[in-house]
């Protein structure tokens, strides 16, 4: 999007369309209206404070609020005493019919519908929320007048399907006027400007406040380009809002009384709404699903960004509570209390700060606020004071614990609550229902659950359910012990052990995942399809197939299996294909326990993965050194497959042929060459003397690092050759003895790496063989540590007096 400059040094550089005279004229016109347009900034205590005064003064018949039209169904929840912010209005639309033609562009595949989502976070001091509570108290009718999500999609989701976060703090971020004010007012960012100009000034007349905010908004808005506003969808929203305002006005009894209709919108909109004609839009109720969900302060702080949003939700909450408390009212007390809380938390993290320090913070914060021209202490004054007073030394060393405490206290980690009697989120309800049916108790305390998978069918169903919760990342269950089919660990175990705990976080995740589906099962299916469609790696896709089976979602296997054929065909990564083979074989071997015997294409998939992996063998010579180990492990896995898998006719010769072709190429990674040579030996395609000839070829001129790598690769596949084949052993022995001192030292690290593949017992055997060869009866072990000791011992025996000569 294009935008005018986002920073400038002087008003003359601002490129604003407005003049002071023009501004005053516009404000007079706004104030002359009988409809009162109350300007707000979202999550602002000052705006809530003055809005209440305006409502008390004007006693409106109706209040119109900038929230999604149609979300009024949530009013009972929003007005319930059992609903406690932070909460959010969550809008979502799943484009199953590809109406917006963005499936496959904003989703992994055309078959996967895009899930559009929007949040309107609400805290106790949000002006919109406060208006709703006052409306309830004073029995004033309320209507929401903003365009809902479905209508905004063409404007906001062109580039990305990242969830849309209301409110439109972006207008403040992209604002040269805000940047200019920051410079003039000696503020570090726009948020501090806001704090200085508005948030810390709670003793104004409310009309004065409104006028001040009108002036600011008019100048700020004029520094945004029309193109930007058009692209943001601001114009279309404002026309709709004006349409709703005019419609509501028709129903007002006392049309001539100023303030009988009160409109609460973002200040950027308040200053243009009076001048618009209004234009409606078709609202599709079915497509615009809006529910109320619990939210967290953390989410709010993260989502709104530092520049213009709400960096410290809990801080403002404390101030608001103070302000609303008739016994306190003075928000300065909140600052002192917060300083003490930060002190306590800092001490938890090992910082030695005292009550005296906290008092000093309070005084310093007040002085900073006063110095910065604020009527009362603000957020930045508190943070700066804490920084100066609590950090007693180098910031790098003493800072982290203080900053951590600050974040925790000022941002907070509170969860909101929705009235349980009024809210029913299908996904949450389904989760609770299934847990109840499976007799899984939902308790906050962590509980250990043991499932004997082969004993009862219920245990199997429980296991599937728990795997589903893990897949949805609900944080409900964690398998601490049991067969891990993905990693091929503990496969001998017949029971799973899970830690489960049900808490607010699980609920919030369930509620927030509503766009995935109405049931846990459907949500897993949706997510599974999305992940499957977005991966081009057969290894990942096969793993998802296994995960689906673990979750008991066998109905989707056929469909995913068809897609997997295509993925395997296009996969050009050897490692991925062997991984796919691995997972598919596991799926096959455990089909009885996974109840997937009905999945017929499995053997065909296995064969296809094998053939494709084999075709890619020549490509693995070109890998980097850091991939060696992984690739050789895959070669090993492929070889094991050929040797052990009997259920299909595996064309071994295809693999052997490819290896031979690959090895005729002189260039490439030598460790991989060694591994492939080892495979040929394991498959009886190469004899021992051929191996030793090849090794000798590397070391003709002395120590060869390539030779060392080759030996390493060879040993990774068939290290038993050194233990079982005497002639091979003798050849290696002779080879090492022929090295000069320098060559030996050069090759030592690589040989050490190769010999680290042997177990201690095997090292002992090798050492004994060497001793026997040299007729050494007694061996003394040098107790240093690990393989180095054994290697030195081994090398010492090989070299005879070489170490003595070298003075070691």
């Amino acid at each position, binding site marked *: 999007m294009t935008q005018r400059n986002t920073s400038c040094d002087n008003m003359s550089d601002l490129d604003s369309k407005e003049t002071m005279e023009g501004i005053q004229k516009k404000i007079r016109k706004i104030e002359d209206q009988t409809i009162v347009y109350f300007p707000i900034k979202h999550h602002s205590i000052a705006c809530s404070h003055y809005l209440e005064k305006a409502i008390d003064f004007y006693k409106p018949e109706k209040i119109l609020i900038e929230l999604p039209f149609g979300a009024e169904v949530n009013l009972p929840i929003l007005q319930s005493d059992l609903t406690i912010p932070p909460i959010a209005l969550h809008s979502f639309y799943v484009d199953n019919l590809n109406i917006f033609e963005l499936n496959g562009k904003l989703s992994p595949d055309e078959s996967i519908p895009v899930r559009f989502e929007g949040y309107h976070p609400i805290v106790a001091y949000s002006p919109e929320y406060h208006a709703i509570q006052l409306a309830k108290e004073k029995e004033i009718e309320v209507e929401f007048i903003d365009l809902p999500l479905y209508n905004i999609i063409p404007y906001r989701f062109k580039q990305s399907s990242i969830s849309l976060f209301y409110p439109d703090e972006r207008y403040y971020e992209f604002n040269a006027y805000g940047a200019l004010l920051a410079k003039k007012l000696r503020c570090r960012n726009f948020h501090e400007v806001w704090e200085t100009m508005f948030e810390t000034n709670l003793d104004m007349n409310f009309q004065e406040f409104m006028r001040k905010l009108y002036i600011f908004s008019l100048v700020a808005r004029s520094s945004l380009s029309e193109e930007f506003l058009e692209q943001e969808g601001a114009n279309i929203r404002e026309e709709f809002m004006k349409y709703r305002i005019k419609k509501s006005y028709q129903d007002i009894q006392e049309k001539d009384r100023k303030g009988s209709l009160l409109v609460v919108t973002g200040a950027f909109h308040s200053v243009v709404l009076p001048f618009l004609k209004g234009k409606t839009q078709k609202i599709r109720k079915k497509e615009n699903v809006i529910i109320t969900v619990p939210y967290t302060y953390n989410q709010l702080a993260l989502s709104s960004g530092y520049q213009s949003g709400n960096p410290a939700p809990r801080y403002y909450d404390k101030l608001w509570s103070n302000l609303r408390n008739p016994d306190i009212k003075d928000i300065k007390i909140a600052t002192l209390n917060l300083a003490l809380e930060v002190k306590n938390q800092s001490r938890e993290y090992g910082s030695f700060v005292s009550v005296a320090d906290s008092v000093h913070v309070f005084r*310093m914060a007040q002085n*900073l606020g006063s110095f910065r021209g604020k009527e009362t202490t603000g957020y930045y004054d508190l943070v*700066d004071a804490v920084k100066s*007073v609590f950090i*007693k030394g180098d*910031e790098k060393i003493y*800072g982290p614990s203080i900053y951590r405490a600050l974040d925790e206290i000022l941002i907070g980690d509170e969860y909101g609550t929705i009235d349980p009697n009024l809210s029913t989120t299908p996904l949450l309800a389904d989760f609770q229902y299934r847990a109840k049916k499976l007799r899984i108790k939902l308790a906050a305390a962590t509980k250990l659950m043991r499932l004997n998978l082969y004993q009862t069918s219920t245990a199997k169903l429980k296991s599937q359910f728990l795997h589903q919760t893990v897949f949805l990342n609900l944080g409900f269950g964690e398998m601490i012990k049991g067969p891990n089919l993905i990693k091929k660990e503990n496969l001998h175990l017949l029971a799973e052990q899970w830690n489960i705990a049900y808490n607010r976080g699980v609920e919030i995740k369930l509620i927030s995942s509503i766009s995935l589906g109405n049931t846990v099962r459907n949500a897993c299916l949706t997510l599974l399809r999305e992940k499957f469609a977005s991966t081009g790696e057969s290894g990942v896709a096969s793993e998802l197939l296994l995960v689906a089976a673990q979750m008991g979602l066998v109905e989707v296997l056929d469909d995913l299996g068809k897609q997997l054929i295509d993925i395997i065909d296009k996969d050009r990564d050897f490692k991925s294909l062997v991984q796919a083979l691995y997972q598919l074989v596991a799926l096959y071997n455990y089909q009885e326990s996974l109840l997937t015997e009905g999945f017929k294409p499995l053997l065909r998939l296995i064969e296809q993965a094998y053939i494709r992996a084999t075709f890619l063998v020549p490509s693995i010579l070109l890998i980097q050194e850091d991939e060696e180990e992984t690739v050789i492990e895959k070669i090993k896995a492929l070889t094991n497959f050929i040797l052990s898998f009997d259920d299909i006719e595996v064309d071994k010769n295809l693999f052997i042929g490819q290896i031979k072709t690959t090895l005729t190429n002189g260039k490439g990674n030598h460790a991989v060459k060694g591994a492939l040579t080892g495979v040929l030996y394991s498959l009886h395609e190469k004899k021992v003397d051929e191996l030793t000839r090849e090794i000798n070829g590397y070391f003709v001129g002395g120590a060869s690092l390539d030779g060392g790598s080759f030996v390493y690769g060879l040993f990774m596949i068939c290290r038993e050759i050194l233990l079982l084949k005497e002639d091979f052993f003798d050849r290696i022995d002779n080879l090492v003895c022929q090295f000069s001192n320098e060559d030996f030292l050069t090759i030592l690290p690589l040989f050490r790496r190769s010999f680290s593949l042997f177990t201690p017992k095997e090292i002992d055997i090798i050492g004994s063989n060497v001793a026997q060869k040299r007729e050494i009866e007694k061996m003394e072990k040098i107790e240093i540590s690990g393989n180095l000791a054994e290697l030195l011992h081994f090398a010492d025996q090989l070299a005879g007096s070489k170490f003595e000569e070298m003075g070691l």
Partner: protein
Amino acid sequence: MAKEKIIREPTEIRNRDEIEALKQNDTYDKPENWFLSPRMVETFILGSDEVLEYEVKDKKKKIKITRKFYGDNVLVQRSIITLASDRGLLLIGEPGTAKSWLSEHLAAGISHTSLNGIQGTAGVTEDQIKYSWNYAMLLAEGPSLNALVPSPVYVGMKDGLITRFEEVTRCPREIQDTLISILSDKVLIVPELGEKGVLLARKGFNIIGTANTRDKGVNEMSSALKRRFNFETVHPIKSVKEEIEVVQNQTEGMLESDNVKVEFKHDIYELLVKTFHELRKGETTDGVKVNIPSTVMSTAEAVSVAYNSGLYARYYDDGIVKPKHLAINIKGAVIKDNNEDIQKLNQYWDLIVKRRGSNNKDWSSYYDSKKYLM
């Protein structure tokens, strides 16, 4: 003081016009005994675009306040407010990050003198912090105020002035702790003088300490003393553009003060500052990793290299500062006590300077001067 005989004027003299203009335009509240209000002290240090009118000897003048400190503006605000409180200010940071510079300007703005100070060393004694005696007078007259030789802390307390204490953590710990009761109770007792020996600090008194984080001392300061200070960590300048401005301004000022006329182009400053910036950070501006020398590549060192290059160009060359002059002088700045740093410098030359030299003549000339690093 005759200008030509002074190596370096204190800031209150160097910037006397600005201070006078600020004083005459100061309408803000100020703590008792402060020369300028906190707002004007801030303006003095951070500069302003506003043109101030002032009068000197009945002549009307105009002046713009120049920026003195480049870095975190909010740090300056916090420092000023700290000095208006009952806690001292301790500026800590790596060498060359303008701690003493800031301390000097704060003292000049608040008390109109930056000269009331102590230099911390391992040999500092309690006498140098509190008071000592003129022993001749002591013997002649016995203990009296006349015989007492006040320390800068004593003077600061008596006259309500900011007292600077440079490198406070270099002093032995037990000597540092002398400050505890001074900062805590704001009283200094001279037992030898009996009742007359109680000095209560006047309003306006405070202490600005500085400490170097490369020395271990800052972390070994007693907690009792730490509690009496607010700490501010001064970081190196983050913005290359700002650092160029600092180095250029400082160097030009120093060369002008020495009456050394040279041609020193902005591009050459940029070349120097980029070198320092990138070696300090361990990464070039385009994201290439480089090894960090063990020496602190501070802005002050960059100024020193620039200044020396100016002198070199003037006295050994044609008066035009070239990249080779930087190369000649940079070695001494980088290589202090660790010979591995020469390898790191060479690596930087081979990896970064050479690459940039392929399409920029200044960097090419810079690379060609590699021989001077040997």
